[in-house]
């Protein structure tokens, strides 16, 4: 735990140094931050915006906004700061998508998807985990934007109800309701494959 804290501190120290240089107009320093955080931001945004093209635009917009608003960074975690900017860009993309509905996740092509890295070498279990991650991604793309946003921020990103309420501009009760209804919707969509999930959680 202490080691993890040290690594985190070192990462934060490195990020703050890069922010400082970027504020001085050093685009290379900012691009180092992009290299460090782009995978996280991509995974976050593409879960909120299931169309990969729109998600890609939203991530690009997020990094541009971050670069333009370096002065607004008030300290704390650079990763969280970038995450919040990306969430805003993703919600803008969702609103745009409502006006111009796009295709959700395209047909799953093996080479285009990255199943989560598993520490499990058993091929059968690995195949099952891969299948589970894919059907879950499919189902996630089919629930409403509001429910998906609340669920991803809570269950994947680890924000608490209050933070989600602040980020999405709704009440605490609405956040809870969206999470409960979203999970019920996911459970319904996964009805035929629910066996993949049973025995997964304690």
């Amino acid at each position, binding site marked *: 735990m202490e080691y993890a804290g040290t690594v985190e501190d070192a990462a934060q120290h490195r990020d703050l140094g890069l922010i400082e240089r970027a504020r001085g107009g050093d685009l290379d320093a900012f691009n180092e931050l992009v290299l460090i955080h782009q995978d996280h931001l991509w995974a976050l945004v*593409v879960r909120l915006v299931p169309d*990969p093209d729109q998600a890609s635009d939203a991530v690009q917009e997020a990094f*541009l906004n971050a670069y*333009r608003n370096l002065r607004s960074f008030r300290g704390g975690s650079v990763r969280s700061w970038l995450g919040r900017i990306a969430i805003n860009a993703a919600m803008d993309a969702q609103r745009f998508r409502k006006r111009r509905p796009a295709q959700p996740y395209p047909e799953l092509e093996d080479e285009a*998807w990255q199943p989560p890295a598993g520490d499990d070498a058993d091929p059968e279990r690995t195949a099952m985990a891969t299948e589970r991650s894919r059907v879950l991604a499919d189902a996630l793309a089919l629930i409403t934007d509001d429910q998906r946003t609340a669920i991803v921020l809570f269950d994947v990103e680890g924000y608490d109800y209050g933070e989600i309420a602040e980020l999405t501009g709704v009440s605490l009760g609405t956040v809870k309701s969206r999470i*409960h209804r979203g999970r019920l919707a996911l459970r319904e969509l996964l009805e035929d494959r629910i066996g993949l999930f049973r*025995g997964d*959680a304690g």
Partner: protein
Amino acid sequence: MNERATDHDSHDRLLIAAHAAGDAEGPDRERAEALLGSCAECARLAADLRSVAAALPSAAVPRRPRDFRLRLAEVEERPAGGPFAGLRRSIEAFRRSLAPVGAGLATIGIAGLLLAGTTGLLGGSSSAVLSTVGAPVGTGYGTSRDANDNAAGGPLAPGVASPAASAASEQRTPAATAVPGGGQVQSIPTPKPAVPEKLSPVPSPAAPSGPPPLVVGSVVVLGLGVAFWAIGRIAAARAGPED
């Protein structure tokens, strides 16, 4: 745990979901726990909801399609951000949209002027106006100057005698007529020819004194059109590569 599935259908699934998330409190929590204790399906639903939530971080994501590092040109070519960046972009977009509107207005203005030219309105002649409404030439409709000119036999087409001018001339002529042999005979006053009411040279008090409305309107529309078009083109040129 021996209730039939049909009973489960009537159970409050949202309450189960709230309880599974740890959000049911007070009486809701008691109701949820009662359901979980008596309905196997409800208990299974709660377990499934927890399993699905726990698996969410492992949901697959498409591969990152590109490197998101910013290019210098990309940073420079786009307008700077800030709290009013969105508003500024909207205003710029509105300005750019003025160009086609301006072109349309200018076309309408030019068409109006051409129409006015065809019907003779551009020259300011009252005769053209009257000819378009079917009235006799030289009746004084239009400017008062026109009326006076017409009364004096002014700007009429050669060979076209104005009845009104004839009448006025007859009024000025002495009532004596020279006859061969130097004598004069007292002429019998000739009756004045009847002048039709509508040929009166006196302009109507309500007659417009400026250029015709069609001309004024066309000039205004043309001016607005050119201005809008220019604003739109300047905004588009400033936006440059974004378009």
